[in-house]
């Protein structure tokens, strides 16, 4: 049996009375018939009373309820009476159900539109609150670190080792790839310029100094922000959604010590190691270009690198990497702990963690550049 299109007919019963005939099958998929023609008939025949005839009505669903709603509205505007007694029992029961619970007072108010001034004000307040929370968080981490140094912090050593593995050894492949390419690119960029002076050999110096002082630490920091910082935010955020953080607090275990501390220590401890590795792989990338393309001899390249890279600049780079590691871990944990209670909030927290980490790394990089210059390092 094929579905029949829903149709509505109106016939006059004389004396200002009309009958609305509902036929066919009513389904949301077929759309909701318009009441405009019916309303036109009510006006033209000046009907005062309408009855509904649903004897030939087939299958029906919500579309019929909505149509009746519209018809009711049209009738009310014209002062016409609508007699619903001809409707199927189910329709009347559903309508009763829909009206059973009145709209809760004030429910709509919360969702109303906010003016632009109020929005600016809210943003300012939010920025203030965010800064306050950040400082609060840093303070709590400092307290937790103090407890850790004095050996009173509560955390699981196995967690710490696991985080070290995740932030250290597991990150080697991606750090290898990125560092090698960065070294390669540095060498290429330098080679084009230096070749014009016949000073190709200084590519070794450039790559060596560039990687060790800046690029090794910064690229590792950015890789770890996307890889580990985001993971920390997502882990803590979903723990917040599952009320795992609440259950730690109620047991008297500080989430700062149990969750944040091991992550912070692991990433801060692993970053200088990764950075050292990255420096080495970057120099290897530069050497590939120097030896392969510029036809420098490997010995010359190594000797030049040795001259250029001093222990001082190397330790400078490692120091920066350590700071970047702490910043990434702090940003990830902060955003994770601030996360809201829904799955989309966890996504927002992850995004915010990566953005915060990268901004922090670049800002710190600028501060270091100026400080190192002033100190003559």
């Amino acid at each position, binding site marked *: *049996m*094929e*579905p*029949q299109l829903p149709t509505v007919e109106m016939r006059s019963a004389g004396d200002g009375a009309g009958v609305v005939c509902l036929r*066919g*099958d009513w*389904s*949301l*998929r077929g*759309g*909701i018939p318009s009441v405009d023609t019916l309303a036109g008939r009510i006006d033209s025949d000046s009907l005062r009373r309408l009855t509904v005839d649903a004897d030939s009505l*087939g*299958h*029906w*669903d*919500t579309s019929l*309820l*909505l149509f009746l*709603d519209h018809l009711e509205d049209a009738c009310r505007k014209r002062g016409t009476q609508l007699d619903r007694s001809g409707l199927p*029992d*189910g*329709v009347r*029961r*559903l309508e009763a*159900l*829909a*009206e*059973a*619970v*009145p*709209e*809760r007072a004030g*429910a*709509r108010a*919360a*969702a109303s539109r906010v003016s632009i001034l109020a929005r600016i004000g809210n943003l300012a307040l939010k920025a203030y609150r965010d800064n306050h929370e950040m400082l609060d968080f840093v303070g709590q981490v400092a307290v937790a670190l103090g407890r850790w140094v004095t050996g009173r912090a509560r955390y699981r050593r196995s967690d710490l080792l696991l985080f070290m593995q995740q932030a250290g050894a597991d990150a080697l492949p991606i750090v290898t790839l990125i560092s090698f390419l960065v070294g390669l690119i540095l060498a290429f960029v330098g080679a084009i310029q230096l070749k014009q002076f016949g000073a190709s050999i200084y590519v070794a110096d450039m790559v060596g100094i560039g990687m060790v002082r800046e690029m090794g630490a910064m690229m590792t920091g950015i890789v770890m922000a996307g890889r580990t910082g985001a993971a920390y935010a997502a882990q803590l955020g979903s723990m917040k959604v599952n009320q795992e953080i609440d259950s730690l607090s109620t047991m008297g275990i500080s989430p700062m010590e149990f969750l944040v501390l091991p992550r912070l220590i692991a990433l801060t401890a692993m970053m200088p190691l990764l950075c050292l590795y990255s420096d080495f792989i970057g120099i290897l990338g530069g050497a590939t270009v120097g030896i392969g393309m510029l036809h420098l001899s490997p010995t010359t390249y190594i000797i030049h690198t040795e001259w250029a890279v001093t222990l001082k600049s190397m330790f400078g780079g490692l120091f920066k990497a350590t700071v970047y590691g702490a910043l990434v871990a702090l940003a990830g944990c902060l955003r994770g702990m601030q996360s*809201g*209670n*829904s*799955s*989309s*909030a966890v996504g927002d927290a992850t995004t915010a963690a990566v953005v915060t980490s990268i901004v922090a790394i670049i800002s710190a990089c600028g501060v270091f550049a100026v400080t190192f210059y002033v100190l003559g390092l």
Partner: protein
Amino acid sequence: MSLVSDLGHSRGQAATGTTFAVAGGREVHIRVRNLTMAYGDFVLMRDLDFTVQRGEIFVIMGGSGCGKSTLLRHLIGLNEPAAGEIWYGDENFTKAAPATRELMLRRFGVLYQSGGLWSSMTLAENIGLPLGEFTDLTPAQIREVATLKLSLVGLKGFEDYYPSQISGGMQKRAGLARAMALDPEVLFFDEPSAGLDPVSSCLLDELILELRASLGSTIVIVTHELASIFAIADNCIYLDTETRTMGALGNPHELLKSCTNPGVRRFLTRGREGAEGVREGETAHG
């Protein structure tokens, strides 16, 4: 008499215009044949064989971890049977081609255990998404449908709230409103009253009965709430963890009166009866 499904599939000759009246007709809506559910090599349940009539409220019951929710997941195609078939009307759901199956899925409405609402959308958007995808309604009409569905579950005025802004019980009711968005022929509820207080849970039972009475949908419910089972179930299936197959099938009141399976008795009487059977069984083993 014209009787029509939303997608124009045949419902067979038994169907008449009154099918959508209360438990009308004795038309088989869901037929499960020799269903075996397994996770890898671990067989959870085997040889499940039952039918659900159109317009019936059918309860899947059993102890924790017996496979109730897994059976529901099989019925809605989230898990594939290890053996056996599931039929809806005269269509084989298990063997259906992906395109056919997708059409069949649109006739289902599912209320998940924790609501399953999309957290990045308001309640009205949650209900409107399937309407926007599968009907030709205008955005204004979709909004009207969403308002109507929300008022059916007592959430009028909450259209622009996000799921995280309302309480757990309200989320569950909003989930129900979304399950009903496309006026499905079959509604599946996974533990609808879990986490609700007794009064809300009773109101939800009444709501389910009222929906069945007015829309005539077939309703399949997974639950272990005895009060609900006795209040709303026309028929129920008991999944027995020990024998790994169905322990009983029938109306819960009659099962309580006449069923002899000790597991079922224990379940329906909250452990007051049927325990002897187990102890005897245990001594016999020992």
